[in-house]
């Protein structure tokens, strides 16, 4: 009766287990990925393993902006062409990629690695806020753009930062809020619509 359930050979089971730990990967996907690797050429498995190791070995946080990078300071911080008087504060490294895609921002960044989230017990001390304040003390920054997400936690973080930075005599700006491209007015919530009205601009089309 107590015969163990049939399971895959040791190393296979182990790989399934490891894939299963990844976010969004269920048991079936983990099995499928494992059997894909099993059938793939050895070079491919080698490349995957090496990429996994490199990401842990070679990636560090930029000592200036806290972005993930393989050279320190990171390429954006080291770029002499960029406007060093403006810092854009974002929640996560991925937000930098999104902003860079716009090709309309030429200043520097700062990554907080999270947002103030009182109910989860995440306060200012758990974020890279001290690092930001240190940066602002030492150089020629004139404007800080707060680009946290326009949701409850992002707004709380922006308010907190705003008060802190204004006390230092800095110009603090916030990304505009309003209607996203492709939206419908009738589905917009009151706050978004009110902000869109407040921030309306003369139409020069």
């Amino acid at each position, binding site marked *: 009766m107590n015969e163990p359930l049939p399971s895959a050979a040791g190393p296979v089971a182990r790989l399934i287990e490891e894939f299963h730990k990844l976010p*969004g990967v269920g048991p079936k996907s983990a099995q499928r990925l494992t059997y894909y690797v099993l059938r793939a050429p050895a070079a491919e498995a080698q490349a995957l393993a090496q990429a996994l190791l490199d990401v842990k070995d070679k990636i560090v946080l930029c000592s200036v902006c806290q972005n993930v990078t393989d050279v320190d300071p990171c390429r954006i911080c080291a770029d002499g062409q960029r406007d060093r008087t403006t810092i854009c504060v974002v929640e996560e490294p991925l937000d930098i990629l999104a902003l860079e895609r716009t090709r309309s921002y030429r200043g520097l960044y700062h990554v907080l690695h999270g947002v*103030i989230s*009182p*109910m*989860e*017990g995440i*306060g*200012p*001390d758990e974020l890279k806020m001290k690092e930001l304040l240190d940066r602002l003390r030492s150089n020629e920054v004139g404007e800080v753009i707060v680009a946290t997400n326009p*949701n*409850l936690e992002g*707004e*709380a973080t922006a*308010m*907190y930062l705003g*008060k*802190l930075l204004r*006390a230092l005599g800095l110009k603090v700006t916030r990304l505009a809020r309003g209607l*996203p*491209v*492709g*939206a*419908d007015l009738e*589905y*917009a*919530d*009151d*706050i*978004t619509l*009110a902000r869109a009205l407040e921030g309306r601009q003369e139409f020069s089309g």
Partner: protein
Amino acid sequence: MTLPRLFKTEAIVLRQRKLGEADRILTLYTPTYGKLDAKAKGVRKTTSRMSGHLQPLTRCMVQLARGRSMEVIAGCQALESFAVIREDLQRLSRALYAAELVDRFVPEHVESHATYHLLLDTLRRLAQALDADSVLRYFEMRLLEHSGFRPELARCLGCERQLQPVTNYFSPGAGGTLCPECAGGTAGPRPLSVNALKVMRLLQRGSYNDMARLQVPPELGQEIERHLRSYIVHVLERDVNAAAFIERLRRDALFETIEV
């Protein structure tokens, strides 16, 4: 209670967590169906029609479809978004504290009109009141009562005698007051001043308006806050996360004043 296949209800969004690529799981508090988790699909995309209506602390009308593991939000419309609370860290930190307490105190799927309205009234009061802390103390006392943890404040829980107008003790473990003799020597109970006892009795028996009329000096307010907090932590057997942020704002004197 078995839920209908498709139903509409008023709800306050207590908290949210991310799920997968673009979804969120929301904890909703409803008057008729109690606390329940619901999946909001696609609300992390900028083109979501629902995300603005489903921010935490929003009171909204939601259309829910019964799902296999949890309800799915089919439609929603914000009724009150409490913009005043969102724009002020003092009010916001306290509103989040209230939402966290409700989330920790109430069980899932239990009908709860009284507690629902307590939370709603508290949010409305936080949007208006100058003294956000009094609003919270009144809320805490009522929530404890609704949840069956009404603290004893009339008699000593040791000897059953009426309390005398001297410094007595408050014991989270015993669930209320102890007279100086009964509290003697044990570590748990903390001294409870005569004035703090009076205000706590008023919180327990009076209406919110009675409390709002009262001018509580800061030191007394903090004593009452400590007693209620220690009792709540004892009942929940865990810390309230949002309390740490309120403390933090107090320490950064920068944030002390409420903006009107």
